[in-house]
Every structure is written in structure tokens, then in C-alpha cells.
């Protein structure tokens, strides 16, 4: 009895000052409910009648549930963004306009490099279609096409399939039969289908290094096949030519741009920055911002935009590489790389093309709101272009890296990574096979590039409205004179282009965080207050009562129990068992008994409960009888434990 008493005394002494507010858990709960700031709990305690109390318990619990649910929703929706659109009317920066001729290099300059390839292509076309000159103009009749040396066709044989499933093919132009055992990739295009659909043309790529593995790529149209085949060889040849020579072979700015007019003021070739594109040769960028100065427009309308007359020398086009005539332009930001081959707009000759622009600026929030990147520095792909990051740049760089890793050399259409060189089959005889395999993987998203690359968070976009008109008009005197002026150029070699702002309204679409911490907290507060009139203070109260105080009480009880058990064990050999058993079973007995050992709420508050009476009212023999009854009727764990003592 000694430890219980001392503890009781101690609790009584210290109760209002340091320890928990009540001696037992249930009384703590009662105290909490009576004194808490939260509504609802008090009702549970105060209500009379079981039904009413039950309802209040239910209501309180459901309110707690609602709070938890709503707050969880609030937290989940924390990272949402709201979109705002602002329109500003102001002086706008004029975008960079890159203009290329569709034909990359002058054919007259390229001839020496391409003559053999052209000869073979010609031959192949002849065998396939049975005509010799076709629509070709006078320009390429110089050489004899009868030379039979065909190193290009040997390297990549062109095949004609009578039936895809029989796997027999005829070589072009030799006509030898050949059995195909390898996989056949059919590029399902049926644009210029010749004859029956069974009649397909393809080429065979042989990889010699690991095993002599072959892949045959077939096209439904012979023209397509030959064009692809030609392109492969063309890239090979171009890869071996140094950049300077290529620049010289392309069109100069003076060649391409006849007149130029910007914002009502005349401009000329000096306002254009040359830029060499691997597939389009020499391109010229207007307003590239190279010298740090970006032109602005302060008046909308076609008069104040960029007006150029382009001269595309159709007679000097490569007959096999390009099939269309005109120029390609792209409107882009000064910091962006112009992906002419992907997103260019084609300009027709003998027409006036007027392109009206609307400027839209967009900005997305980066992580954690959306998965985009601000600068591209967090993407594990080295930017091969010296321009600012874009998704396109990332994908191209990623593919080029994979190309260098797998095939050992770099693809011609993209910039060179440091230390690599362009593929050509003198050095890398089987790069084409490798390239085709890799490209297929890339398209099927097996290289992981699409997963690594993220979109850029902010981008400027110019929406273009393109319309065409006939130009020059049939009676126009100036243009006919102009034609005379520029060395009597035919109409079909000229293109008129006007790029202008339709209006100076800039639309800025930006994402803003819909929530911030202040709003989140105030939403929390709203929820807590609405359902239970609770606040952070209540939360602290709950922590205090349910965690700290309860923990104290429980540990104290455990400690007390353990201590008593220890005392009992020590006392067991000397004292008689019944006396030792009695206090161990107090929880099982009526309240009156427990009151002796553990201080209750009443005792703690010093309410007039006569202690002495309790002591007297509980005679020890009761325990024994109870214990005996219990032992016979109902083997409760407590009693079992008691008996074991």
C-alpha cells in the first residue's frame, strides 16, 4: 500500500501545477470535454439520456471525419494552378524570321559531288518506270547515263518485290533475282502508287560488323523508295564535305533576297544573319538579335511589317532531292533554334504570301505544379544547339547522343556533339542500318528520349494567318520592269512575302498558383471552425490531453503496476498470498475499492469523499470470496494471472 499512497499524495500536491489535469484517463477525458474550446465534446458529457449522448457522439465524430476529409482535399488540391490571360497593348518585339530556299545547294555547284549518284538514280528510275528523261529539263543532259559502274547500288541495293510474302525480289537496275530472308519493314505509303499494291519497291540495309544482318525497307511507291535511298546517299556525301565548301555552294543573301522593306524603311542583305542548316543549306534570319538589338514594331499592319521579294532559282534545283519549288520560312523567337524542317511554312512562287501574326506569350509553373523545365539545366541531355532550351532541341540532342553511342558517328541533320563526326560509309560502313534501327526505336519511344525530355515552361508563340494572292498581277508594270531589272527573272522564280503584326495586342497566358499557404491555412481554419469551432489552440489542447497527459497517466499506471508487482514478488516469500493478491485485482472490482489506491477526480479536486469510510467499507475477505467465485465460473485473464501468484 505504501507506493500507492505516496503517489496519491504526490499527485494531489502537484495536480494543478505540473502533471496532467486528472489522475486517470477517463477523468482526463471528462475534464477535457468539460473544458475544451471545441464544441461538441462538452455536449457529450453534459447531455442526459443515452440516446442524446449517442447522437452527440455520432455528430462529433462525423464532424471530425468531415474535417479530416475536407482538410485532406485541401491539401491534395494545394498544388493547382489557375490560369490568367492578360492582354497588353504595347510596342512588340518583332520575331526573328528565318528564310530558306527549299533547295539547299545550287545544283550547278553540287554536280561534281553528286554526278555518280545521280547517274545511278537515273538508271534506277529508268528501269523502274521505263522512261528516260521524264519531265527533267535541259539542265542535266550533259553526262552520259550509260556508265554501268554502280557503287551506290552495290552498297544499298534497291529491290523490287513482286510479292511481299514470297520474299523474292528483283534488283534494280540489274534485274537479278534475289531471295530475301530478313525482316521486311514496310513504310506504308501509297502516295504515288505504281501498278498493283503488291508491286513494292524497297532497299536493303546490311549490317556487316556484328553479324551480317539485313533489313529491307519497302515502300509502296518506287518514287518514295528512290527518294529515301537518294537521301541516304546524299547525306553520306554531304557529311564528307567541309562546312565552308557547303556554304559556298549554297545561295548567298544577295541571291535570295531581291528587295527588303521593314517598318517602312528599306533594308538589305546586311540585315539578315546567315545560318547554315544541314538540310536546307544557307538560311537567312532577319532580326536575329545577333548584335543584341531586337527590332520592335510600334504599328501594326502590313505596311509596317517585313516585306521581301525572294528569288528562288528553280532552274538550279536538285532534281532528285526536292520536288517542290519555293521558299520555307519560320517565325521564331530570337533565342530559339529554327527547326525549319519540322515547323516551317512553305512559300509559293508567283504569289504574294501575307502572313499576319498574333503574339502569345505563355508561362507555366514548373515543379511541383507541372512537369516542365525553366532553363533545361535539369534535363540530363546536353544541349547541342547553342540556343535556349526547347523540347525539340532536347529530343534531337537526345537522339544524336544515342546515335553517337550506338553507331559511333553522328547523324547529318543535327549538330555534332563534341568529339564526334558525321557518319559516312567510308569510315562507318554500316551506319545506315544502325541509323534505321535506332530511328525506329526512337519513334517507338524505346530510347527513353520522350521520357527524359520535358517541355519548356515559357514560350513565345506567333499564331500565323497566311493568305495568298496572285503576284505580280497580270497588268502590273512595275513587276515586269522589276523582272527586267533583276536579269529578266521569270515570274515563277519570284515570291513576295509580307510578315506583319495584325495588331499589337500581346496575349500573356500565365499560370499562377491557385493557393498559397495563407489561403490554405485560412481554408483549414474555415473548415475547423465551421464543423467544430476548433482552432490551432484546440489542436494543441488535443495534443496536450490525448498524447502528453494520457501518456503520462498510462505510463504512471504501468510504472505503478510494475512497481507493485515487484514489491509483491519481493514480499511473496515472506508474506501470505491473499494480501499480496488483493491490490493486483483492483481494476476488476467495484469503484469503491479502486478509490483507495488510485486518486480519482473527486479526490484530486478535494471533493468531500471520506477516505476513511472507504477504507472501512471494503473488508479484505470480500476479495477472497470473489476470487474464488471467479476462479470457478469464469476464467478471465485477470483472475488467471491472480491465481498464478
Amino acid at each position: 500500500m505504501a507506493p500507492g499512497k505516496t503517489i496519491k499524495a504526490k499527485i494531489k500536491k502537484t495536480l494543478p501545477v505540473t502533471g496532467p489535469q486528472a489522475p486517470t484517463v477517463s477523468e482526463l477525458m471528462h475534464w477535457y470535454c468539460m473544458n475544451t474550446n471545441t464544441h461538441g465534446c462538452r455536449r457529450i458529457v453534459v447531455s442526459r439520456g443515452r440516446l442524446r449522448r449517442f447522437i452527440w457522439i455520432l455528430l462529433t465524430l462525423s464532424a471530425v471525419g468531415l474535417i479530416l476529409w475536407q482538410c485532406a482535399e485541401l491539401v491534395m488540391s494545394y498544388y493547382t494552378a489557375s490560369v490568367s490571360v492578360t492582354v497588353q497593348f504595347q510596342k512588340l518585339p518583332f520575331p526573328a524570321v528565318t528564310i530558306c530556299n527549299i533547295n539547299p545547294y545550287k545544283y550547278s555547284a553540287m554536280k561534281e559531288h553528286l554526278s555518280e549518284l545521280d547517274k545511278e538514280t537515273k538508271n534506277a528510275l529508268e528501269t523502274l518506270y521505263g522512261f528516260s528523261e521524264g519531265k527533267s529539263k535541259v539542265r542535266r543532259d550533259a553526262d552520259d547515263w550509260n556508265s554501268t559502274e554502280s557503287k551506290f547500288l552495290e552498297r544499298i541495293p534497291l529491290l523490287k518485290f513482286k510479292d511481299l510474302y514470297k520474299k523474292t525480289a528483283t534488283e534494280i537496275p540489274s534485274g537479278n533475282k534475289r531471295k530475301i530472308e530478313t525482316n521486311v519493314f514496310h513504310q506504308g505509303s501509297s502516295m504515288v502508287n505504281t501498278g498493283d499494291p503488291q508491286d513494292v519497291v524497297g532497299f536493303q540495309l546490311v549490317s556487316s560488323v556484328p553479324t551480317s544482318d539485313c533489313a529491307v525497307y519497302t515502300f509502296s511507291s518506287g518514287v518514295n523508295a528512290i527518294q529515301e535511298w537518294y537521301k541516304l546517299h546524299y547525306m553520306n556525301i554531304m557529311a564528307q564535305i567541309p562546312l565552308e565548301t557547303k556554304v559556298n555552294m549554297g545561295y548567298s543573301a544577295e541571291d535570295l533576297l531581291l528587295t527588303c522593306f521593314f517598318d517602312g524603311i528599306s533594308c538589305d542583305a546586311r540585315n539578315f544573319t546567315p545560318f547554315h542548316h544541314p538540310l536546307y543549306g544557307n538560311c537567312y534570319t532577319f532580326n536575329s538579335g545577333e548584335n543584341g538589338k531586337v527590332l520592335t514594331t510600334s504599328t501594326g499592319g502590313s505596311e509596317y511589317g517585313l516585306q521581301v521579294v525572294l528569288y528562288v532559282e528553280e532552274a538550279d534545283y536538285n532534281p532528285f532531292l526536292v520536288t517542290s519549288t519555293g521558299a520555307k520560312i519560320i517565325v521564331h523567337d530570337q533565342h530559339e533554334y529554327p527547326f525549319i524542317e519540322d515547323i516551317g511554312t512553305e512559300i509559293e512562287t508567283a504569289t504574294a504570301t501575307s502572313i499576319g501574326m498574333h503574339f502569345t506569350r505563355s508561362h507555366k509553373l514548373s515543379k511541383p505544379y507541372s512537369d516542365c523545365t525553366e532553363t533545361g539545366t535539369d534535363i540530363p541531355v546536353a544541349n547541342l544547339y547553342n540556343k535556349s532550351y526547347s523540347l525539340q532541341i532536347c529530343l534531337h540532342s537526345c537522339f544524336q547522343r544515342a546515335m553517337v553511342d550506338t553507331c559511333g558517328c553522328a547523324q547529318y541533320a543535327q549538330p555534332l556533339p563534341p568529339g564526334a563526326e558525321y557518319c559516312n560509309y567510308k569510315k562507318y560502313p554500316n551506319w545506315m542500318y544502325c541509323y534505321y534501327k535506332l530511328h525506329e526505336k526512337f519513334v517507338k519511344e524505346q530510347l527513353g528520349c520522350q521520357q527524359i525530355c520535358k517541355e519548356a515552361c515559357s514560350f513565345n508563340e506567333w499564331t500565323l494567318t497566311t493568305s495568298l494572292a496572285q503576284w505580280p498581277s497580270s497588268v502590273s508594270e512595275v513587276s515586269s520592269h522589276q523582272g527586267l531589272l533583276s536579269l529578266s527573272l521569270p515570274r515563277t522564280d519570284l515570291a513576295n512575302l509580307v510578315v506583319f503584326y495584325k495588331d499589337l495586342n500581346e496575349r500573356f497566358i500565365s499560370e499562377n498558383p491557385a493557393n498559397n499557404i495563407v489561403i490554405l491555412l485560412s481554408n483549414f481554419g474555415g473548415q475547423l471552425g465551421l464543423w467544430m469551432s476548433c482552432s490551432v489552440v484546440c489542436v494543441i489542447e488535443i495534443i496536450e490531453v490525448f498524447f502528453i497527459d494520457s501518456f503520462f497517466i498510462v505510463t504512471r499506471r504501468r510504472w505503478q503496476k510494475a512497481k507493485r508487482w515487484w514489491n509483491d514478488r519481493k514480499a511473496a516469500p515472506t508474506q501470505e498470498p491473499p494480501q499480496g493478491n488483493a491490490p493486483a485485482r483492483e481494476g476488476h472490482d467495484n469503484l469503491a475499492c479502486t478509490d483507495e489506491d488510485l486518486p480519482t477526480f473527486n479526490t484530486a479536486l478535494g471533493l468531500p469523499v471520506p477516505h476513511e469510510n472507504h477504507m472501512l467499507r471494503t473488508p479484505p475477505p470480500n476479495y477472497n470470496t470473489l476470487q474464488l467465485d471467479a476462479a470457478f465460473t469464469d476464467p478471465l485473464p485477470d483472475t488467471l494471472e491472480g491465481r498464478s501468484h
Partner: protein
Amino acid sequence: MNFKRYFTRVLHRLQKGPGYTYKELLVWYCDNTNTHGPKRIIKEGPKKKVIWFFLTLLFASLVFWQWGILIDTYLSYSVSSSLSIGFKTMKFPAVTVCNASPYKYSKVRHLLKELDALTEAALERILQSKHGNAISAPPLNSSETVSQRLDLKLWNQIPLVLIDESDPDYPVIIDLFETDQSGSGTQPAVKVCSLPDPTCIYWNFTSAAQAVTEWYILQSTSILSQVPLQERMKMGYQPEDMILACLFGAEPCSYRNFTQIYHPDHGNCYIFNWGMDEEALISSNPGAEFGLKLILDISQQDYIPYLTSTAGARLMLHEQKSFPFLKDQGIYAMSGTETSIGVLVDELERMGYPYSDCTMNGSDVPVKNLYNEYNTSYSIQACLRSCFQAQMFENCGCGHYLFPLPEGVNYCNSEDDPDWAYCYSSLRSSIRHRQFCIDSCKETCNDTQYKMTISMADWPSEASEVKHRAYRARIESELILVSDRNGIIKLNIYFQEYNYRTISESAATTIVWLLSSLGGQFGFWMGGSVLCLIEFGEIIIDFLWITIIKIISWCKGLKQKRARAHWWRLTPILGFNMRTPTSPPEMKFLPLEHSHQSQAPHPPTTTHCVLTHCLSVTRTAMQRPVKKHRRLRCAWPPDPCHSLCTMLCSLGKLQGIKRPQR
């Protein structure tokens, strides 16, 4: 009466005193407030008390900080946008069609005869000088003939020159007709001079053709601006010539459904569905079948040879009752083609001030809208042009031909204002003036753009009957041959499957939002509400009340002190002798009664303290019966005693000192 009652009540309250102290008030507040923190401060033990005090303080400051943020957010008037896309029955846009050439050459030929001859000659000269070393005739001869043949009056106003920049420091300027050499490094330029004092600017070009075109436009503008408007309209393309067929939905329409306006750039323009006189037409179905179909004849043969080199129709979609600014937003339709235009109406509805800086109807813009004469609504383009015209009038004294005129101003022409071209070109290149206009004009709050998807096909087809016979919508509706394929255009304008995309703004932070957020914050940290604020305000009022009362009583005490001192000095012993000569403690009430002040218990003031204490001190010090007046005299005014007493009082020992007993 009410006031009087009120004041008496206040007086009573003042006399009665607050009834409690600051501490009592605070404790009462903490115990009874609905705010969550303070109660804990009172109820807990000393250690927790401190913790709770700081917690409450922390939460209160958090609440105020975040309230500040919220109010700041509210005052930034941010907006949230909502986007809706779909199809609904909408007003069909107004469609303006013009010919690319403003006039029929056959009608204006007589006016431009001299100019054309000049141009012809100039072009020949340029041609010779360009690559004419071998082929050119002797230049002197030709220039003579040129001067003989031509009337050089027009030429001399704005001549075309060649600038020889072979020596970059000293460019040589040669009149085109006086040159006798064919320089390779020459650049064509237009010379524009101001007349009274001949300063000239040269407007140079890379291409001669361009120079000639610009020069021609300048010259023809000044010639044509002298022709009255009615005549000019007659020179242009007439509606019955231009609009061959028209079909809206399933209903046929004709050129009579078009409103004619005169557009300075494009001559006669025709607007369909402008909505000026009658209700705007609506279209309730997507697709070409339910849109507008037009067949236009642009008769390319009758174009002015030097003025427009582009052939086609210019068209524009715009809102009802707005002016079409074709140069800015118009598109071309190519002759010999069928142009299909799918329309998506892109609307932006914004809230006005203070959410964004835009104008609802242009009434708050400091620029007079000159396009009001067309009865059209405000638009930013109209504002910019009006602004430019106003500046033009200010600087050059005449109005530019391309824009409407303000009251009492004439269009510029070379005869009346010989230096207008100089003035105009300097104004046009002045960035300061442009910036001024940009700053003074505001965009409209409701911005509608028509997004067009344009596709083209050859029309009429090779096999088509119409190829050589275009429709001419005559009254007898007979088919006759009008023009070849190059002169006719077919247009289809229709709504796309989704015909509107509306971005509308709404206030992101309303007063309701602000209140609920404020409440949320207060509730979250302290479980408080507006009532708590009122409670707090009440407490503050009580505080003030207590303070006021204390100050008043202190003042009263001070007054008493003075009065007593005065009284004692005057009648030192008299009062005591009269009333209770042997009871020193009662003395203190004497002056009070004397001053009729109150029956209320007097608060323990400093005077009281001093008095009692000094009495006791003197009593204990002397320990012998002394004469009362002498004792008092000693106790009350002398300085050393007084200071000691105040010190003791302030040390709070007052309670400990017993009053001297009799």
C-alpha cells in the same frame, strides 16, 4: 434632454469610479472571451501560463500578419479566367470585301496620265543606268527628250534620285533625269523636301522597283486626294460589277445586301452583315452549307499598272458596327481559286478598372475618335489612326489621305501644302510620336478575334463549264462571259464545328472571399470570430474608461492637494478646532466635504497616503502631545518629510503602516 441625461449619467459614472482595476478587467476578459488562447493563460499553472501566453501572442501576431497578406492580395485585384469552347448560335461576322486595286484604271487614266509617263521614263532611266553600259542610248540625248516630252512639275515636287555611295563620306546625289553615267554603286532614293527652307531627306531603297512604287504612291495620293469623294467612289469598282453571286445559308442575297463604304486604301469596299441598319444575321449551324458564299469578279485587267502589283480580293471578318482595318487584319483571296474560310470566334471578355487597364467604349480615352463618322464603335486601331491624324494636322496643317478628317481640315495635296510629304515622312519615322499614340490609346475590354482556317483549291476546275463563263448575276440571271479564270474568286465563309472560344475574366478575390479568408485565418489560429473582435473592442473601451477615470481622479486629487494646501495656509487651526479637535485621522475628509464633491469613497490618493503616513511618522517620532496646529504644520508642507513619505508609499509599504490610534 437626452444629452443632458446622458451627461448626468456620465457624471455619475465618473463619480462612482470603474469599480475594478486593469488586472481585474484582464482576468475577467481572459476568462470569458470566446477566443481560444487567453482562457488558458488564466487557467493553467505558472509554467504553462507562460507557454500559453507566448503561444497566444504568437498566434495573434500570425493572424495579423496573414490578414495583412490577405488584404494585400485583395487590393491587387487579381482576376481568374475561365475558358469555354463550344458551338452556339452566333451572329455571323461582318464580312468586308474589297478589290486589291482601289480604282479602275480606265476611269482614272486621265488623272494619272502625266504621272504614268514620268514613271515610265524613270523606269527606263533606271534600267539604262543599271546594266546599260552597252545598250543605253547616249544619256544626254535621252534626258533631253525626256525633259521635252514630260511635264516636270510633278517631278520637281518629289524627285527620284540616285545616290552614289562609292565614297561613303561624300555621297553624290544625282537626279534621275540628269544623270549621264551609269553607276554601279548607286542606290535609288526618293527625295522629299520641306519647302520654305529647303532641308531634304532621302528615303532610299535597295531596289529601284520599290523606290518607284513608293514614289508613285506618294504622287498618286496627292493627285487623287484633290478629287471629291463622290467622284472617287465612281472611279472604283461598283458593287454590281464586283459581287457576282451571293448566298447566305440557303437564302440568295445580292450586292444590295452589302453596305458600301469608301476605304482609302482599297477604294470601294462592301460590307456584308454590318448590322448598321438592320439586325445582324445569325448562323446556327456549322459548315460551309450554312455560311456565306460569294463569287467576286476583280477584273484584273483594269488594275492601275504601277500602284498595285498584287492581284486578288482583300477581305476581312470583323465585328458588327466596327470599322474594317483591312491593311492590318485583312487577308487576300487569290483569283482563280475557291477559298474556304472556317471561322472560330475567339473572344476575350475582361473586367474594366481596377482589374485591368482597358476601356469599355473608348469614352475615357483622350483621343477624339475620327471614325465616329462611320458610326462605328471604338477600337484600338481607330484610336491610333485618329491620334496620328491629329498629330498630322498639328504638325503639317493638313490631314493624311488615308485617314478620316477632323472638322475643318483638308487633305494634304502637293499644290496647297508643298512640303507635306516631308512632314509626313518625318512624322511617320518619329518614334516619339508613335509612342505618344501608343500610350494614350487603350485597348478595348472585349476583344474579339476571328481565327480563320484557310484552305484553297483551284476554281473553276478545268472541266467546269464556268471556267470560261463566270456567273453574272443579272436580273435575267443569264450566263454571259465576263472574264477568264484569273478574274474570279469564290469565297466560302462559315463557322467551324466549334465556333466560339471565350475567355472571360472574373474577380479572383471578392469581398466575400476576403471575409471568409480573414475568418478562416482568425478561426484557424485562435478560434475567433467577429464577436471576439467586438469583445476585444469592448475591453479596450473599458480600458480607456478606467484610464480616463483614473486620470480624472488623479487630477482631482492634485486639485484637492492644492486646495488643501491653500486652505491650510489660510485657516491653519480653525477647522480642527471647530469640528473634531482631537481626531487627526478625520481631518482628511474635511476638505472633501468642504468642496461639495461627493459622497463616494475617496480612492487612496497620494495626498491621502502622504497625509496619513506623515501623521503617523510624526506621531511616532515625537511620542509626546504636541499642539495640533504645530504638528500639522510640521507634517504637511515641509519637503524632507514629504519626499520620504512618497518614497515609502511608492514602495507599497502603505498597507503595513497602521493608522495611529487614539
